[in-house]
């Protein structure tokens, strides 16, 4: 049991750290329409989509907190946003027993838009000035990236969770 937990923790750390490095070193330098993709949000969505709402929230929170550590925006902003996004993704996926690939792609795009909007609104509440007219292009870019990458990233999370097929979701760390 302890070995299993340690294995899960190690695989999670490896995946989140790799995603973080790719985000800050690669993705941040691949702008399109003055916006960049968001791999950490994708990690949260994929974790929820594979593991269900609880895992989505937990791993989303972890991904967001890791991202917050590398940014100059209010600390905790992305932890909050990605926890909600991960939960939503898990909640959405849990409505169906065996969703098809296009469902995951559509949901990744949809939850990404929600994630971007929530982060902007929370940032604005915290006093971070932001032009609202930029939301559309940012949400679009993030949604497209995440829709394109959701399938391989879901496989990554299956590996992390040590599961071979979707099946019914199990609640993590019960």
């Amino acid at each position, binding site marked *: 049991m302890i070995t299993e937990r340690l294995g899960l923790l190690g695989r999670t750390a490896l995946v989140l750290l790799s995603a973080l490095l790719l985000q*800050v070193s690669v993705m941040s330098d691949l702008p399109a329409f003055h916006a960049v993709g968001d791999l950490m949000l994708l990690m949260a969505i994929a974790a929820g989509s594979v593991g269900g709402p609880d895992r989505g929230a937990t791993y989303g929170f972890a991904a967001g907190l890791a991202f917050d550590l590398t940014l100059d*925006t209010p600390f905790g902003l992305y932890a909050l946003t990605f926890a909600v996004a991960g939960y939503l993704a898990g909640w959405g996926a849990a409505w169906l027993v065996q969703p098809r690939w296009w469902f995951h792609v559509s949901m990744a795009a949809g939850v990404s838009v929600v994630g971007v909007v929530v982060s902007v609104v929370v940032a604005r509440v915290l006093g971070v000035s932001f032009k609202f007219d930029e939301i559309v292009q940012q949400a679009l870019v993030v949604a497209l990236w995440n829709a394109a990458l959701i399938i391989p990233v879901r496989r990554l999370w299956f590996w992390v969770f040590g599961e071979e097929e979707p099946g019914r979701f199990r609640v993590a760390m019960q």
Partner: protein
Amino acid sequence: MAAARPRGSRTRLALLVLVAVTILAIDERDTSTFRPVREATSTVLGPFEDGVERASRPMRQAWNAVGSDDIKDVRDENETLRAKVAELEAQGIAEADARRQLNELSQTLDLGSLGDIPTVTARVTSGPRSNLSLAIEVDKGSDHGLKLHMPVVTNAGLVGRVSQVAPRRATIELVTNPEFRVGVRLAETGELGTARGQGRDQPLVIDSSIAPGATVAADAGLVTSGVDRSAYPDAIPVARVSSTREGAGGLSLELVAEPLVDVDRLSYVNILLWEPPA
């Protein structure tokens, strides 16, 4: 596909949201609380970031080449720049003479100048890391003498200031950041104002003390004011006025100015090893 009732604990989500909100509240109260953690993360991740950044450079360059304007635009821009260089060379002759006279006067009166401030040249390792961030990362840090709030410039003008320092990396808050403020003066007339960022690809707005009816020349240059206890040394070029409008309350003129530095296309920057007087 078949429908299933979603299972999930709202308690866990509520707990995580509560933790996140608490962290946000602590950070909101004092932004320096989590700075050491962020700096430590930057120190630990730095070498790995460098490795990934180096390995992915060809791909990123290819992406940015595709994403940039087409070749014809680049050629046109090149032609325009060549003409500009010729013009500047001509101006340079006259300015060289003026500079020589200024240096003589400065030495006579024992006045310091921007050129006397030591600088550290740093490579920009990454642009804004998220869509809400208006900061860039550079490959020099406290080991190279960098400290918080030091001004960052290029030959074209002010880029921003150091907002976070790790031993071998630093974060630079850009001049376009809406939180950014810098005291400026009109280079020609000496009138003072405060410039503030307006966000990505947006001009700066300068709250001035100029009377609403006054005329400010189009293309008038703005430099740092360098007034007493200013956060920046005197005479760093900042922006060029593009338009004017009546300020809030109609009591003064508000200037709109384009930053001289294109902060989206930075490869190297100079950090002035200068700290504001206590």
